[in-house]
């Protein structure tokens, strides 16, 4: 559904995305992970036609993002990192105008359906300016799928939201995926990626350094982690089995903790950096 071949973007002398190649299958939720500045957003922006690649190629739903950009725009939905709704318009007006841009038919019915789906019906005729962050984010997702896209780009969809609202958004995302929408999600929340993604790719300095299902990635580094606090610094050791981890922990004495590994451990192991730094 999405295909990248040596996709590259330079900003002046800075290489933001470096010969990135991977495929995303139809019906998949694919997570792009990495610290700030790793090139996640730039990659998404090239795929959704906002930024022109410097080199390489990318296809979305079989169309080249540069040569057939207009066709790509018709097939994708985009929910950017910054909430870019029209603040002086109501929820209903925002959706309506989006529908007109896509030359949709039956806009009214679809707007009601989406307002209902996102639980915003009661506030549908209020100006967005007065919405809470969570409501704005929900409407942003509603707008991005208004025209029933085949591929959806979600750039940090739950950033800065409280836990209840995040869960609500996760439900919306899973629901969309069940309806057959292919989703490319960027996040630096590890649990979000573990929970939602069928597969994830980890970016560091514009390069893909790991690719696989969350399970595969975690197994590849070892399923168990021993955290030990030595002179105020936490050290992490990875082990294949619980016994090995326990045996090691016993040799360390106090201030140790055994837990299962997560995607963040994969990331630290591979880059030496923590996500979110």
């Amino acid at each position, binding site marked *: 559904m999405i295909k990248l071949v040596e996709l590259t973007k330079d900003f002046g002398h800075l290489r933001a995305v470096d010969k990135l190649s991977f495929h995303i299958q139809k019906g998949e939720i694919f997570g792009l992970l990495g610290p700030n500045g790793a090139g996640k957003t730039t990659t998404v922006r090239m795929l959704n036609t906002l*930024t022109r690649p410097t080199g390489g190629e990318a296809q979305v739903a079989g169309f080249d993002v540069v040569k057939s950009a207009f066709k790509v725009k018709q097939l994708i939905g985009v929910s950017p990192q910054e909430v870019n709704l029209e603040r002086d*318009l109501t929820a209903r007006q925002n959706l309506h105008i989006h529908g*007109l841009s896509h030359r949709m038919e039956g806009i009214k019915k679809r707007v009601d359906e989406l307002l209902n789906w996102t639980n915003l019906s009661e506030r549908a005729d209020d100006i967005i300016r007065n919405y809470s962050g969570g409501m704005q984010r929900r409407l942003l997702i509603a707008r991005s799928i208004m025209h029933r896209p085949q591929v959806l780009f979600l750039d940090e969809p739950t950033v800065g939201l409280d836990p209840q609202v995040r869960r609500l958004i996760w439900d919306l995302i899973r629901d969309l995926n069940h309806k057959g929408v292919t989703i490319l999600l960027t996040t630096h929340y590890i649990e979000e990626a573990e929970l939602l993604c069928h597969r994830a790719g980890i970016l560091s300095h514009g390069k893909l350094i790991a690719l696989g299902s969350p399970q595969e990635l975690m197994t590849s580094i070892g399923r168990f982690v021993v955290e030990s606090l030595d002179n105020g610094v936490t050290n992490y050791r990875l082990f294949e089995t619980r016994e090995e981890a326990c045996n090691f922990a016993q040799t360390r004495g106090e201030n140790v903790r055994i837990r299962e590994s997560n995607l963040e451990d994969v990331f630290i192991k591979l880059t030496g950096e923590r996500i979110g730094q």
Partner: protein
Amino acid sequence: MNFYPVFLKEMIIFKRRLFRIGYLFSNMITPLLYLIAFGLGLGRGISIDGVAYLAFVVPGICAMSSMTNSYSWIATSISVGRLHFKTFDEYIVSPVTPSDIMLGEVLAGVVRGMFASSFILIAGVLFGAGFPENPIFLVAWVLNCLVFACLGVISGCLAKSHEDTATFSNFFIMPMAFFCGTFFPLDKMPVFIRVPLSFLPLTHASKTLRAAFLGEGVPAVSLGIIFAFFIILFALGVVVIRRVNR
């Protein structure tokens, strides 16, 4: 052609602003101040080529006001939408073409420019300056708004910060407001000033608007020049929109 959503969005915002009394009032006040100060104050008893100064200055201020309003509304809307709220990105990821965006924004600028400058014509009638005699006035009026709305899109798309649109306005729009035949005729200006001014669109707009207002022969060349400005700036605007975000 799918410019309607772009136009509609601007119109909804415009309508919302109209209901704020302060906004409506500030729209009326600046040009009225010019009209009162120059038309009724300074110009009382003066006539230019046999025309009362008030009747001379009303079409000039109408040209000026339609220029600044068409320009600044669109320039601000686009630069803020691009640089601050990122709403311009929503256009780019939608299947609307650069010419759709251009047309929608420019038409919105025309509505805005004509709305603001119509107060001048109303005030002109109230103060006894009369009403446009030749319907060509309407053509020139719309064209003038089109030209400066195009310029608004271009400056809004090229701005690298919010201050850039203001800078552009101070260097190009404001000097034109004063020197392009809005407040005084250019015939008596020295050649080295008159010639460069004849390359500016507002010079021709105020010339045409004034001739149509007073019922004199309409300068076809000037009308043609404004039209040419519109075509060139519209095409340039489409190119500039295409390059946004590269």
